[in-house]
């Protein structure tokens, strides 16, 4: 409904996931949530629960260990959702680009809406990126968004979407 859509940007709840980052960007994200930069003034809550989140904050190049969890977490977030890639590694692979055990950035696996540059990106940049993400969030529809890899076709039981069956396939597929 149109009336409720305007409230999306007033209460963005974030899910923060570290896909093999060096911890630099994670500390900056925590700094932007802490009293000095105070992200909570936008209504942001760091939920830590994908089922109640709107914004997916990812840091780090995707290591082979973390890619299944990345896709799984992404599929568990109900639509409308927005992905923010924080840091150079998440956008291009950064200093880890071309290494044997990492992928070069998360956009090989899931669609990214906002890229925040920097190694590590500063709290000001992260807040700027989040505010940009809120505009995108407000314009989005509630259509199902799919990751690019490790996912396959949409699974249904009866008429309804089965996220459990889709999540199972993530582990079975090795591509």
């Amino acid at each position, binding site marked *: 409904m149109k009336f*409720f859509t305007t*409230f999306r940007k007033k*209460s963005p*709840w974030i899910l923060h996931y570290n896909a093999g980052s060096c911890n630099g960007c994670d500390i900056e994200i925590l700094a932007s949530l802490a*009293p000095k930069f*105070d992200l*909570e003034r936008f209504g942001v809550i760091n939920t830590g629960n994908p089922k109640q989140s709107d914004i997916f904050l990812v840091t780090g190049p995707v290591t082979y260990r973390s890619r299944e969890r990345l896709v799984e977490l992404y599929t568990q977030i109900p639509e409308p959702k927005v992905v923010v890639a924080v840091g150079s590694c998440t956008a291009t692979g950064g200093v880890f680009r071309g290494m044997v055990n990492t992928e070069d950035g998360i956009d090989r696996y899931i669609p990214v809406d906002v890229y925040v540059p920097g190694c590590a990106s500063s709290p000001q940049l992260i807040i700027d990126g989040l505010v940009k993400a809120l505009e995108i969030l407000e314009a989005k529809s509630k259509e199902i968004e799919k990751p690019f890899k490790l996912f396959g076709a949409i699974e249904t039981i009866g008429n309804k979407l089965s996220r459990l069956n889709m999540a199972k396939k993530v582990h079975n597929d090795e591509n």
Partner: protein
Amino acid sequence: MTWIWILLAPLLGGLIYGGERVLRARMQRRQGPPLLQPFYDMFKLLDKRTLIIHAPHALLAVAHFLVLWFTVAAIFLGWNLLYIIFLHLFAQILLILAGYSVRSVYSHLGANRELLMVVAYEPILIVVAVGFYLISGSFEISTILQGGGYWHQLPLLFVALLIIVPIKVKKSPFDVGEAHQEIVGGIEIEYSGVFYEFLYMSRFLEYIFIYSFVFLFGGESYWLGAVLVAGTFLVVNLVDNATARVHTADMLKIVYGVAMSLAIINILGVLL
């Protein structure tokens, strides 16, 4: 007039919750969210897609909210205090059943902790009701509110109630049931969208439930009651900002060791 208050109870609780978030932000010297933030969150949750585990799990959250609302209505109508405490227990049991009905480990852990919290605070609430009975001669809230002098005769019982208020409103040091980054909200973990909203709103009603017990200590003087509620609100938030979460077993030890002894000493003092 009372019926309007009952209908507006979740909104009133939402305002208390919003005010609390602002107050906590100011205590940490930051700006904090707007006062109406809980309502923005509610409207946003209505707009999200909802993922349901199975129907009873989702409906138990709705039932929990409705029973709590009925409990708050019973408080506003001035019914029997014991009846209200057991209605509230019924609402908690529904929530705990919901926690056990899914296979998530965190949900089970949260339900276990919620059960321990009920075990911790329930005896104190009943002893508080007994204390009111000994002074006023009745368990009816409408009769209790016509009497007075609870504040002078039951000071230790008030301290005992003060110790269990953080358990009920899920604040540090007794927020084991929710424990955000530790068990990710416990029972709340598998809820999303509209059904999470019912749990979110039932938290507003919990605020009204527990603070109305504090209000009763004012007796016939509503001003004294309001001052007590405001003071408790401040103290609880101050303690929340200044302490870390205690272990579940330590919570039980503190509540049974300190709060229960204080309450029993006070009851014996009134009796003898």
